[in-house]
């Protein structure tokens, strides 16, 4: 995989409310290019919302988002999202299109590639996730693990500078989780900048460079995996870890 020259992502003082529900209350997150940041925390802590704010699927009420040190809040959000790949808990593949079309759609329509060019590129991406032989299948005929790997290929096809994973293995049967996590670990070691919202503490500890623990819409603690998992400073993180480990 080619080395990516950009992708340092910073969120500064991000606030978001849905009505009176304050989902994010001043989040700071910095992800250095080529590193993997995992975000952990209980359900409803705002982790998944944070990802959606960082790629402006939801606009923040306050705060700034910087990519390579430059604020992207004034940019066209569609342009921003072409630079950030996203993988969802429920895969969200397009069920009316073949696996190949799922991967090549954005290449043809947004990158303006010819059908042949897009096809080649999509097949190469499917190769990378080990599913080239499923190119003509419909997503509905794949297992959950296969669907998620197609979703990863779909996001990677756009050559994103950053990849977001929103609980990418939470909807998978236990025996399929390993394959997807292995693929994510491969991506991380190939130098992709990644933000991974996850309940997989093993992955978080072994693969990520930094771990951010969120609770109640704030970052409670953040640091390298060793200090987060082996030396938690706050009672909230300690009690969370004792619940999940």
């Amino acid at each position, binding site marked *: 995989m080619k080395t990516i020259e950009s992708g340092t992502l910073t969120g500064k003082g991000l606030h978001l409310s849905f009505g009176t529900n304050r989902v994010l209350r001043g989040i700071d997150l910095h992800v250095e290019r*080529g590193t993997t940041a995992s975000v952990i925390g209980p359900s409803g802590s705002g982790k998944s919302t944070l990802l959606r704010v960082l790629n402006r699927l939801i606009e923040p009420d306050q705060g700034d988002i910087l990519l390579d040190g430059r604020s992207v809040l004034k940019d066209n959000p569609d342009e921003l*999202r072409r630079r950030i790949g996203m993988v969802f808990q429920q895969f*969200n593949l*397009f069920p*009316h299109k073949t696996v190949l079309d799922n991967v090549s759609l*954005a290449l043809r329509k947004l990158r303006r590639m010819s059908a042949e060019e897009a096809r080649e590129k999509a097949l190469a991406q499917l190769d990378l996730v*080990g599913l080239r032989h499923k190119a003509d299948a419909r997503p509905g005929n794949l*297992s959950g693990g296969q669907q998620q790997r197609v979703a990863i290929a779909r996001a990677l096809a756009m050559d994103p500078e950053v990849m977001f994973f929103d609980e990418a293995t939470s909807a998978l049967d236990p025996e399929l989780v*390993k394959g997807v996590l292995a693929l994510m670990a491969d991506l991380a070691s*190939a130098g992709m900048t990644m933000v991974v919202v996850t309940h997989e503490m093993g992955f978080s500890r072994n693969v990520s460079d930094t771990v951010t623990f969120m609770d109640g819409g704030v970052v409670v603690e953040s640091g390298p995996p060793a200090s987060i998992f082996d030396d938690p400073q706050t009672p909230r993180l300690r009690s969370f870890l004792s619940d999940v480990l």
Partner: protein
Amino acid sequence: MDAFEQLGKTFFDWEAMVAVLPDLLTVGLPNTLLLALASGIIGTIAGMILAIMGISRNRVLRWIARIYTDIFRGLPAVVIILLIGLGLGPVLREITGSTSPYPLGILALSLIASAYIGEIFRSGIQSVEKGQLEASRALGFSYGSSMQLVVVPQGVRRVLPALVNQFISLIKESSLIYFIGLVASERELFRVGNDAASNTGNLSPLIAAGVFYLCLTIPLTHLVNFIDTRLRVGRKQKPEPDDPAAMIPTSGGVRA
């Protein structure tokens, strides 16, 4: 003649049926099909526009779609057909010089159809999971492109059975066009059968017209059932289990 013979003669007089056949085939059938197809196509296009308006983030567009739909779904078809056919007749004559109310019949049927089809499309589009729009937006597609490429095609697919049902209704409702008065060559199935029945004092030609309607609608009903089953069950193919050994790509990449 006993009562049964009398009834048989009234409804199943073969000679009367055979006599009306040529007119049913060459005049009635083409006109019924033309009315139903034309208003079906116009109604589908207008219905799609109404559906898009109905889910728009613009409140005014939503309200226009709502009011239109409530009115044209809430009135009896015959009221709309008469009001449009008789009311707009003079206007049409002034513009085109034609006295035929035929286009107005198509217009009235299209107005009714679009209200129903708009609701069908809207419910279909709204039934598509939110994650589909989100995934498309996350790839970098605009709202409009996402709707066009991802959400609407899935929504439409889900409501195909309802759409075919609507077309069946149109075939039947096209018979109401006779209220606005058609010249001999413009008569649809019902009017041809009805005219023959009035002339002969025998209902058999109407039965013959009815058989024509059934020949159109019954296959369509079964088409609905077929599509419905296909959509629910899908083509017969089973997902295969992941093969853990084969699926992990071992790139062994060195950390950059």
